[in-house]
């Protein structure tokens, strides 16, 4: 049985804009990944619990409401506190370019803004995902 990349697609915070997250969830599935879509209004604790129980290789966070600087690093931090250091965390949504550096320093491995070709996201994930 071929191993599948398991990815959590989550919307942290109170942001209700999930069109992009849903589209990406479908794109990842089309690429042969197993996508766990957690739905809206997730706390970092919920996202990390899902990642832990699902043995997720990747956590994809989407934010369009300006809360990324709080929520994204928090997810990374919680993953680390559970020893899940090798889970690839990526983010996307409406994120000002000046925040990219901070987020990447906090452990979000890549930020994909509007207009990113979806295949760039897919190939980034495929080439940076852990082995298990």
């Amino acid at each position, binding site marked *: 049985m071929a191993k599948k990349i398991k990815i959590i697609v989550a919307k942290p915070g109170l942001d209700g804009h999930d069109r992009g997250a849903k589209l990406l969830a479908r794109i990842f599935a089309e690429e*042969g990944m197993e996508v766990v879509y957690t739905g809206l209004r997730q706390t970092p604790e919920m996202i990390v619990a899902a990642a832990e129980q699902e043995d997720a290789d990747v956590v994809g966070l989407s934010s369009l409401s300006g809360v990324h600087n709080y929520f994204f690093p928090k997810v990374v931090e919680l993953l680390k506190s559970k020893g899940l250091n090798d889970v690839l965390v990526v983010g996307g949504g409406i994120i000002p370019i000046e925040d990219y550096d901070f987020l990447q320093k906090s452990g979000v491995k890549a930020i994909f803004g509007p207009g990113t070709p979806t295949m760039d996201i897919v190939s980034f994930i495929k080439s940076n995902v852990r082995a298990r």
Partner: protein
Amino acid sequence: MERPDAPYCESPAIRTLSIYDEVGDSADSTCEIGYSHLELLPRMLSAREPVLLSVVVERTSGLMNRDYAKQILEGSQQAVARLISWLEDEDERAYPFMEELYPHTGKAYILGITGSPGAGKSTLTDKLIRNIRKSGLTVGIVAVDPSSPFTGGALLGDRIRMSEHSTDPDVYIRSMATRGFLGGMAKATCDVVKVLDAFGKDVIIIETVGVGQDEVDVVGLADTTCVVLVPGLGDVIQSMKAGIMEIADLYVVNKADREGADQLNMEVSARIEQDTHIKMSGWTPTVHKTVAVDNVGIKELWEAILKHKDFLESSGRLVEKRRNQTYQETLRMIHNEMFRLIRDQLQENGRLDRLVEEILERRRDPYSTMREILDEWQFFTPKQKEAS
């Protein structure tokens, strides 16, 4: 001298590098290095050489050296999570741990929830979890969704409805894709149930994929099977058919606030009544109206499930049921493993491709090919016996 904690690290990487000085105290140079920094290791070491007495390198190549069985019995969620992934991947590393865990299984009560897509299985499961947790029991959930037959990918959406329980340490939710397995579940679902059972969950809920009429494998795994129906999907003849309508210990008429719920209730009850004339059974299925989104009828449903559990236990049916299940499961496991061995061998040297070509060109036929291959394996087995 304390060694730094080495929590789980799932990639083949060196996790921590601890450097101790001559008096045995941990030097302040305990550091974490990732896989990508591996090439720096010699340089880092040589820089430190003057005080270097011992270097402890914790190698955690994908938890491979860890005793999963022990850690699962001790309550490690991450060990459960990884073992399940291996089982899904048919990774051979899983099997020794399953052997160790098996004696610890058989304690959980297994509940199957099945029904058509959109019937409300996940929402119903969510509300059932709430009720079960109120009584203090712990719950494991295996929620199955379909894999794409074209890409192999899957969108697993059952967790959305169960968000409320995602941070409850006594609830373990695992989504699974079918990966081409028919029958309403994934191939590894039965193994995953065993892991959660050994993990100590009191009740394990299997939520099948949205099923049609004939995907009834859940009945071979569950102690109690609930079939979730919704109004508006067909007339009385649908409820008389074989397959899904036969496997229920309990029927749930969900979305019971919608038009047609009473009609459906009557039709199902009529079927149950017919069944009492046709087959002898100590248990007469019951019908339960629920509105899962509003948490209506769920408490009563859980009580009815417990009644069925009592019936199974007091009548000796549970033992009988599990004997049948074990019989089927043993056969299935042998079947699967033999199939896997033969398939892998045929694929490994490209022989299968050649055979397929020859069959396509009508130079051979699949029937004699099948026999030929089986003959090789039959020949192989007694020979091995002699050797041993």
